[in-house]
């Protein structure tokens, strides 16, 4: 808009040299920045595919289902790590989502106004803890606590299920999943909180006016109104859990096996890449890059799904809001 206003010749002539240079320069530089970002993505994809080349031609798609990862016999397969990534991130999301929704409801609807901001800031700061520190805490505190308290309790109640069978261990899928829960919670919370804040006040007041209790209002107005936002937030949290490497590598116990018990050691794709890439060569390096490629595809799919859901929800909300308001 500014540009069209300035296109009048008299106005343009009045501008001094720096002003005249400023706009094209800004456009050029910011365009360059955008191009660099695109080039970086293209470069990363190219490099990962290129690095993975030998493993792709050696193992093909069978890589995904092969259950062996053995640097000595040079047989590599992704199955143990696909399993580990799926199990740990799903547990993390199942635990983190209700927790985050509860925190957000408290912060937007129930908490005294004075403490909302400090508590929200503290929850956000949870995301700022360096993951390596969280991993150390996992080794020194959470792991032993899981082994000595949580896992024996789970085992005594639900021990007939294979996933809660076997000896408790400080290192394993469950400890890793809890670390991921701690990482995903602030992300999901901050998105759901913002979504909850956008619920129109009239809707809430209308609900109260009809005699709804606070819980009924939350259930009938806030949650339905925010459904797509919650789903989007959950998937963002899932993306975080799938991609986390360092802290998981510290607590999952780095085994290249599928263990039925959640107490036992395993591996995830990201953790495997983080712990082995630097010291690998040849086919192993290519196989790790192949794992990276699968992880990249995972991450892109998860992000696209989240965007589509959030976008569709936004459109739907605009269409639906008046009807919902009428319904109330």
């Amino acid at each position, binding site marked *: 808009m500014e540009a069209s206003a300035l296109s009048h010749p008299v106005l343009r002539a009045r501008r001094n040299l720096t002003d005249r240079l400023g706009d094209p320069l800004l456009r050029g530089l910011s365009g360059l920045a955008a191009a660099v970002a695109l080039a970086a993505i293209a470069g990363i994809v190219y490099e990962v595919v290129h690095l993975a080349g030998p493993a792709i031609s050696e193992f093909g798609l069978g890589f995904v289902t092969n259950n062996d990862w053995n640097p000595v*016999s040079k047989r590599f397969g992704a199955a143990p790590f696909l399993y580990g990534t799926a199990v740990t991130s799903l547990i993390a999301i199942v635990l983190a989502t209700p927790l985050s929704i509860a925190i957000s409801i408290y912060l937007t609807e129930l908490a005294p106004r004075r403490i909302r901001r400090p508590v929200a800031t503290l929850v956000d700061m949870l995301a700022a803890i360096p993951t390596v520190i969280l991993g150390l805490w996992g080794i020194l505190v959470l792991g032993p606590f899981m082994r000595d308290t949580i896992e024996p309790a789970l085992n005594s109640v639900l021990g007939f299920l294979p996933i809660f069978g076997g000896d408790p261990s400080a290192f394993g899928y469950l400890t890793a999943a809890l670390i991921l829960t701690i990482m995903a919670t602030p992300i999901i919370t901050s998105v759901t909180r913002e979504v909850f804040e956008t619920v129109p006040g009239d809707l809430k007041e209308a609900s109260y006016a009809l005699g709804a209790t606070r819980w009924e209002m939350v259930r009938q107005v806030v949650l339905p109104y925010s459904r797509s936002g919650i789903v989007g937030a959950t998937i963002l949290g899932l993306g975080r859990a799938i991609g986390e490497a360092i802290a998981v590598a510290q607590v999952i*116990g780095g085994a290249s096996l599928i263990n039925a018990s959640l107490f036992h050691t395993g591996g995830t794709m990201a953790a495997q890449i983080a712990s082995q890439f*630097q010291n690998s060569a*040849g086919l192993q390096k290519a196989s790790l890059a192949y794992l990276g490629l699968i992880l990249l595809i995972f991450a892109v799919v998860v992000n696209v799904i989240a965007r589509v859901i959030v976008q569709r929800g936004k459109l739907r909300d605009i269409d639906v809001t008046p009807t919902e308001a009428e319904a109330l």
Partner: protein
Amino acid sequence: MSKRPLGALLAALALVFAVAACGSSGSDSSTGSGGGANSPLVGAGSTLVAPLMSKWQSDFASKSEITVTYGAIGSGGGIDQITSRTVDFGASDAPLTPEQFEEANAEGEVEQIPWALSGTVPAYNVQGAPEDLKLSGEVLAGIYLGKITSWDDPAIAKLNPGASLPGTKITPVYRSDGSGDTYAFTNYLSTVDPEFKSQVGTSTQVKFPTGVGAEKNDGVSAAIGQTDGAIGYVGLAYALQNELSMPLVENSAGNFPEPGVKSVEAAADAVDKIGPNNEISLADLPASADGAYPISTYTYVIVPLETEKAEELKKFITYAIGPAGQGYGPDLDFAPLPKQVVAADKKAIGKIGNG
């Protein structure tokens, strides 16, 4: 919204500077590698040798005016970088495998030279077990194969007559990242136990059928410390400097030598056999080596024979294996190289530049 163009502008400027900086440093290094007197050396690899290397770097720079830059990125990384010739020398705790040699030789022959000597030691945390618990290679192999699962196993009791052993479950801890310690440990276990050799094998990264993987020496030692009944393996220097409790391991003479520079040196002295490509395994010690520590290991430098920096590399490696370089060893828990290895190294150094 109004902030955005400014942010983009700043980001763009930052990027332009970053790119320019990369570009100029890139051209610097390419002009610097043109040979000539005293051009700097760049190396990468083993983390085990890194403390020794940092002593060598400063001392060698003051004596020869050649600076050595070293990246402790791990043995596998060192092999990778020397294979692609992005460094002047690579350092690895494991000797190159035949395939690795083939790959590295694709750009002209490389030479592997043992230049430091150390050991890998088991460490354990078992409440109620005696200090200086005695173990043998077969028992260690049994533990890591998942065949020996409790500390009062008859095989352990037999080595510790009279000692009271708790029935605690054994948790073997291993390195989940690639490591020279894993190489030394699995090389030893594969030598003493054929079943371990066929089931697990020898490498810087192997697939253990049981146990807990942890990252780096620190991770292994934390996992041991947090788990009653755990046993793991770490570098000799790390174990001594952190005063971990170490079980004693039986050597081929039937003795249980204290792990340390002295017993590692004794192991190196007992082995005269230098394999093809200067590969030396200290896992199979003669029965005459009374005080030899059974899990001792060499760490190697890998250099191309054809290189513009032949003179500098010769000087540096000669220094490292000489009395000045090896003199820093004992303080850092490295044993000095024995005479026969120094002699073989000198011959190998002579080949550099005559590829």
